[in-house]
């Protein structure tokens, strides 16, 4: 059953990319970029999604928005525009018709990682921010202009920026323009796909604070995709850790950072730098690269790099199960291991 305050529920989401070869373009293998992801996002919260490069977190975000066609699974979303503001019905984004998708887009938007490629160099900032409204055919030209100016104000830019072109702005300012565009349709869910990883650290803080202010102001829900754990810890209510197309652990932020139950999470946490010169931490190095998602390891996908691995890990894929009220993990040995979290700061 879906709880009342659930905005998005993802069940067994899969996205396989075919590997084609030869003259006839026969499919010789599947890249399992997303391989059975279950997630729920509650209205108003920020869910952090972390993992190494290539683990499928970006694909997950894009598949939820149907920017990438899912191979299988359900994406249940409480779309306001589609249900006629009743706020009760959930729509399966994965099977929605093109007309439904167009309406759903008003409620789910994306902020991209790269603030350079995400703004059309031939359009003015005003045109860029107003484009979603134009596409959706909401508002007249003058209403749109007024809304654009409001949005620019909300993200900390000024009205006279609207007539300028993207190349006149810095990376941080460009990201603000991208945020204003994502908010133009007044969405409920915003997928933030590594929104700060292309920015300087000082600018990162500004943009994150802006995202938090906007969340409060507009009642937004974020799926915050990142690989920087300290950023995720700061902004998220709950955090999901992804490894090779699967969620391996999901818990409240404090719980996950203080009391990780999956060896992969423990290793990730040990790599976070702590701003204290006297603090000694034993790093847990992860050896080797992320295995290929074309041919993932048997059993638990993490076992070749796991220092606690036993025979069962090599043969049996672990179940994704609850180990606490709000703590889910996918590890055979979650109950017996005592793993080290991060010192609370």
């Amino acid at each position: 059953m879906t709880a009342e305050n659930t905005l998005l529920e993802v069940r067994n989401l899969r996205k396989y990319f075919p590997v084609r070869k030869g003259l006839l373009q026969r499919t010789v293998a599947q890249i399992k970029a997303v391989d059975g992801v279950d997630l729920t996002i509650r209205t108003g919260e920020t869910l952090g999604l972390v993992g190494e490069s290539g683990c499928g977190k970006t694909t997950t975000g894009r598949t939820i928005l149907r920017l990438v066609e899912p191979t299988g699974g359900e994406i249940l979303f409480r779309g306001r525009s589609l249900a006629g503001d009743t706020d009760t019905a959930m729509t399966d984004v994965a099977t929605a018709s093109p007309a439904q998708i167009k309406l759903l887009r008003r409620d789910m938007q994306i902020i991209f990682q790269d603030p350079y490629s995400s703004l059309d160099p031939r359009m003015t900032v005003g045109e860029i921010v107003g484009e979603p409204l134009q596409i959706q055919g909401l508002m007249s030209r003058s209403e749109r202009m007024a809304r654009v100016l409001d949005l620019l104000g909300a993200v900390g830019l000024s009205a006279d920026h609207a007539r300028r072109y993207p190349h006149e702005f810095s990376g941080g300012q460009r990201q603000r323009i991208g945020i204003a565009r994502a908010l133009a349709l007044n969405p409920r869910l915003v997928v933030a796909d590594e929104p700060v990883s292309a920015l300087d650290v000082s600018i990162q803080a500004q943009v994150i604070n802006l995202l938090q202010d906007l969340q409060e102001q507009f009642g937004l829900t974020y799926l915050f995709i990142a690989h920087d754990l300290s950023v995720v810890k700061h902004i998220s209510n709950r955090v999901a850790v992804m490894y090779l197309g699967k969620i391996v652990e999901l818990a409240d932020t404090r719980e996950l950072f203080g009391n990780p139950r999956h060896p992969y999470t423990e290793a990730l946490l040990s790599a976070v730098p702590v701003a204290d010169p006297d603090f000694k931490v034993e790093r847990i190095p992860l050896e080797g690269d992320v295995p290929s998602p074309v041919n993932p390891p048997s059993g638990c996908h993490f076992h070749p790099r796991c220092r606690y691995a036993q025979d069962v890990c090599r043969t049996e894929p672990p179940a994704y199960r609850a180990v606490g009220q709000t703590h889910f993990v996918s590890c055979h040995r979650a109950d017996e291991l005592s793993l080290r979290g991060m010192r609370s700061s």
Partner: protein
Amino acid sequence: MTDFFRRYSRDKVGVFFGALLLLLYGVALTAQWITPADPMAVNLREVFSPPSATHWLGTDQFGRDILSRVILATQVTVKVTSAACLFAVLTGVPIGMFVGYRGGWIESVTMRATDMLLIFPIIMLAIVVVVISGPTETGVIVALGLAQAPQFVRITRGVTLSIKEELYVEAAIAAGSGWLHILARHIWPNISTPIIVQATLTLPVFVLNASALSYLGLGVQPPTPEWGQMLNEAKDHLINAPYLIVGPAAALVIFVLSANLVGDAVQETLNPKLKKRK
């Protein structure tokens, strides 16, 4: 735009030949009024008169003033080649954008079809079209345009493929945009530069092909003058009246050379990276 002209003006060769090309287009536009004599008037008392004060480039076998005929031929050539160039762009670019953006089997089929068209020598393709449609002005325009359209399909598809991967296209999709909006609003403004360059660089090819067709008797028909056709007539009298060849040949060389060099200059202005590799 002003920026383009400012940078273009630094290219001395480009400016000189650009002026020459503009002059040719000026001649073409005003041809009816600036010919010193009636280009069609037959004067059998003055056949094969060598260049003189009255007939700067001499007269042909019917006593018609060559200079006047070259001037009128400029108009015909400019009209035919501009229309053909426009035809090639207007058919090739939309097709290239559409198949490049949509992809899939429709792209494969279109690209194999253009590959097949590219196998044939352009002039032969044009001959086939002219034979079917008849040697009228429209026939020549369609023939030259169709022969070059595959080039524009290929170039447009190539640049479309790179632009459609940009994140702003994905942002438009995420906002619910359809393909038509994306092509018109995002793809076209970002691919127009290489296509303008290609169009300028192809213009001399159109001129050469138009003259070649008319040299072969497949272009604009007499008595309307055309450079290629005038050259064809002049070659029969090469021994007794060699001066006949000078006018049309010089006009052809000037047009093709200036169009080529202007194309290069536009290319270097819009795409400065290419210049350094030279």
